[in-house]
């Protein structure tokens, strides 16, 4: 493979990688489903994955990927044809093939070559071949001769033909014209067909337009040909016979052009474009849920056929020249066919002249008939476009700036004291628009959790096999949308939580039966919008958390000291999130090192999320991840200490009050406690953390804000609450790094910078400060 890769090629490769990755992600869960019920539709989808990956990889010369995909395809084809019975090993094998492909794609993405995957590819392909061999031996009575090379390796349309058990429409036009039972086409498949079709047609259109202006460019013809060819293949697969027929005819013409034949018109681009429009119309139809019928198909096809002039030989036959002789003449064709025939005495000059005249006439006629092809431009229906994430981020940043700018404008100090009725009206209008824009921008980043959830199917499958447990994973609320960054951040936590549920939570089948439960455990994975947050809930019906065991372990590790009988269940359950904490007596390869829960906590903190744990012994555990809807903008309470103003996230604030001396208690250690109704909360002084001089150190002169963090509550002492405002979160500079107690900063209406306090680390940094003071 040459290493001179230009930008175009890189783009193609990158597209290939993202597309394939998407497909694998989509199909992996389906492969597992395949093990449970062999649905022909799923089978086909998986087959298509490997097939198109093979095709693209082959085109891009990623030989190792091609090899593995080909082997997987072979296996699938045999299964699909009913020659091999699907066994669980095959599912595992196919999953492995997916894993290999993922690795290979990663490699391709970084190095633009898959050469380093050689050994892995050999191994993988060998495994697949072995599986085929073994399966064949099992089916010894089955004649194995036909299975050697079950699929054509190159052309897209041919490979969907194999005589399958389930009714896949073949691409043979005569067969397809019969009302064959159609392949069940899901909406999803339809959508992907429409998207792909749109893309192919658009590319072809661009190619045609370019070629129309520059007819000498034969390279672009090849490109157009490929686009139409792929489109035809797709149509064939989906059984859109008419579209297939038309595209087939277009392909024929392009083929003629490619080989340099003369056509009825100098440049058939216009006619081809008209046909393209027809196809586009049909694709639009399909996206609307119709069948993509082309009404005047015959006429269209005929028109295209007119473009291709019949060969001279055909007219010569009409003139009574022996067909055989013409064939021979064509074979020796160096000079015009006519001349040869005359030379050989097989045809008289008159006959040839007549034939030539007829050919000319025919061409003329065709020219006249084909001219009126007027393009009716039908715009493509765009479902979605791919946008670089960084562009989106900068758009959202800009909107953040706009919010700040709007604040600065509306609350401009210059306006204070002025009567500005009209200005205020305009200002309000603008505020509304800005808010809408902001909300819209937020939704752009939101993607459904289904992708994330479906990835878990594979995980659960793998673990349940490893741990010897039977599990039903139920997904609820897959359509719930969450910010893309959040999805990335909660992927790892979900993996760890599910692992825990499966490894510790669910009992082995015999134990379950003994306690009167069903043999199969159930894990619910739910996503929903609740209370202005997104909740992701993992719930199992296993044995539940063992309160005593957790406590015992915590005491032995010195995480809890003294009397623990007072601890609430909640506080005890929260201990499982401490780093290094594990109640597992043995470290298995699934879990037990005490790392996972720490990851869960840390990642959730990153996105300002919370974790709730509830558990009933013997009945199961429920872990709720509560995640704020947006990351970029929060509701904040502006508080003041001395001359400094800071922002507190409103979500963590429970209440605020002006304390009286009677409410305050000071412990012998010097800790201040505030009594709020029946509870005592420790007091943290913000001025001590920020090292500022407050207006007063006397508690009754200021305000106590009750904050909640991971189930524990405390009071924060500030001078006053200034107000509430929508806050656009900005990171502190990389140069500064992380600052304890501060999660970021924002720009206030007056243009000043204000720090956003991080409730979680406030507690920690307050404790640390105290420690330092004591020592």
């Amino acid at each position: 493979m040459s290493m001179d890769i230009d930008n175009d090629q890189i783009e193609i490769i990158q597209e290939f990688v993202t597309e394939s990755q998407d497909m694998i992600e989509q199909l992996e869960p389906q492969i597992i489903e395949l093990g449970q019920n062999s649905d022909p539709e799923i089978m086909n989808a998986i087959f298509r994955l490997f097939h198109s990956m093979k095709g693209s990889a082959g085109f891009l010369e990623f030989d190792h990927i091609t090899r593995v995909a080909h082997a997987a395809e072979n296996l699938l084809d045999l299964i699909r044809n009913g020659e091999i019975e699907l066994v669980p090993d095959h599912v595992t094998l196919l999953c492995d093939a997916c894993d290999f492909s993922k690795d290979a794609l990663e490699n391709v993405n970084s190095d633009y070559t898959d050469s380093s995957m050689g050994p892995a590819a050999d191994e993988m392909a060998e495994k697949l071949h072995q599986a085929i061999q073994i399966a064949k031996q099992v089916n010894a009575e089955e004649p194995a001769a036909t299975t050697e090379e079950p699929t054509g390796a190159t052309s897209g349309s041919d490979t969907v033909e194999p005589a399958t058990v389930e009714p896949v429409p073949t691409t043979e036009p005569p067969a397809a014209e019969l009302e064959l039972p159609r392949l069940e086409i899901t909406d999803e498949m339809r959508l992907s067909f429409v998207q792909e079709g749109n893309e192919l047609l658009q590319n072809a259109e661009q190619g045609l337009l370019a070629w129309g202006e520059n007819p000498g460019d034969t390279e672009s013809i090849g490109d157009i040909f490929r686009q139409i060819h792929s489109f035809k293949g797709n149509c064939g697969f989906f059984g859109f016979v008419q579209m297939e027929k038309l595209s087939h005819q277009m392909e024929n013409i392009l083929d003629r052009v490619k080989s340099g034949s003369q056509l009825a018109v100098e440049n058939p681009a216009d006619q081809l474009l008209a046909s393209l429009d027809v196809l586009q119309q049909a694709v639009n139809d399909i996206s609307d849920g119709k069948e993509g019928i082309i009404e005047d198909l015959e006429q269209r096809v005929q028109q295209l056929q007119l473009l291709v002039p019949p060969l001279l030989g055909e007219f010569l036959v009409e003139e009574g020249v022996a067909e055989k002789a013409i064939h021979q003449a064509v074979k020796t064709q160096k000079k015009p066919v006519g001349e040869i025939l005359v030379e050989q005495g097989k045809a008289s000059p008159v006959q040839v002249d007549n034939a030539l005249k007829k050919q000319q006439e025919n061409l003329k006629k065709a020219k006249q008939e084909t001219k009126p092809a007027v393009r009716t431009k039908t715009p493509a229906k765009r479902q979605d476009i791919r946008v670089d994430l960084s562009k989106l981020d900068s758009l959202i940043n800009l909107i953040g700036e706009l919010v700040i700018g709007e604040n600065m404008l509306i609350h401009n100090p210059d306006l204070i004291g002025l009567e500005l009725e009209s200005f205020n009206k305009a200002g309000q209008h603008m505020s509304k628009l800005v808010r809408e824009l902001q909300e819209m921008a937020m939704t752009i980043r939101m993607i459904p959790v289904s992708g994330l959830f479906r990835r878990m199917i594979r995980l659960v499958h793998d673990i349940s096999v490893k741990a010897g447990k039977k599990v039903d994973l139920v997904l609820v609320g897959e359509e719930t949308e969450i910010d893309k960054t959040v999805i990335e951040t909660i992927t790892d936590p979900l993996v760890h939580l599910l692992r825990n549920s499966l490894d510790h939570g669910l009992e082995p089948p015999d134990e379950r039966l003994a306690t009167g439960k069903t043999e199969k455990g159930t894990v619910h994975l739910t996503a929903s919008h609740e209370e202005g947050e997104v909740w992701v809930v993992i719930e199992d019906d296993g044995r539940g958390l063992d309160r005593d065991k957790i406590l015992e372990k915590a005491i032995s590790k010195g995480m809890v000291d003294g009397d623990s009988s007072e601890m609430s269940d909640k506080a005890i359950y929260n201990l499982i999130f401490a780093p290094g904490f594990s109640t597992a007596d043995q470290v298995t390869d699934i879990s037990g090192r005490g790392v996972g829960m720490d990851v869960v906590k840390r990642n959730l903190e990153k996105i300002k999320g919370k974790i709730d744990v509830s558990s009933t012994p013997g009945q199961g555990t429920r872990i709720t991840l509560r995640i704020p809807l947006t990351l970029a903008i929060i509701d904040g309470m502006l508080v003041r200490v001395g001359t400094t103003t800071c922002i507190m996230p409103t979500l963590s604030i429970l209440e605020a009050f002006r304390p009286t001396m009677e409410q305050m208690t000071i412990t012998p250690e010097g800790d201040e406690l505030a009594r709020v109704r029946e509870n005592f909360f420790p007091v943290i002084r913000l001025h001590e953390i920020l090292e500022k001089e407050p207006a007063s150190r006397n508690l009754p002169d200021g305000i106590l804000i009750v904050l909640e963090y991971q189930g524990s509550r405390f009071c924060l002492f500030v001078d006053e609450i200034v107000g509430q405002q929508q806050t656009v979160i900005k990171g502190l500079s990389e140069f500064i790094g992380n600052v304890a107690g501060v999660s970021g900063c924002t720009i206030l209406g007056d243009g000043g910078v204000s720090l956003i306090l991080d409730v979680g680390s406030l507690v920690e940094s307050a404790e640390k400060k105290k420690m330092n003071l004591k020592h």
Partner: protein
Amino acid sequence: MADDIMLDNEDTQKDKYLTFHLAGEDYGIEILYVIEIIGIQKITEVPDMPAFIRGVINLRGKVIPVMDIRARFALPDREYDDRTCIIVVNIDEVEVGLVVDEVSEVADIPAANVEPPPKTGKSAGSQYIQGMGKIGKAVKILLDVHKLLFSEEMQALIAEQDET
């Protein structure tokens, strides 16, 4: 964008230094790094920072940290006045403001007129000196902005903050 400008002007920016005044001495930094010069403005303090990191400012919606060069070189403090400036520099896509007493001019100092830095450094600042630039009789202390911002000492200080 900034990169393009830098590339375009690579030649024209060569040997050009922005000179400024600090505690009675003249200093210079390569113009290449300078984004803009702004007057002193309200700085928001950030807790747990070394004393020479004064805090952060709002530069047209961007929050950038501000370093006081006097404090960095352990020179005596001085009240900010209307001549005090913040020079905004960009190094490796990190923008930092540098507080100086007074900005003077852009000076052309060809490499031939730059002497290597003195070996004996008694002040905290001497290790950040890139060379001594001569313009006629005047001498400008040319600072290595990279070292100023990313010296090991600086990294250690920041790392220390991260831990707390």
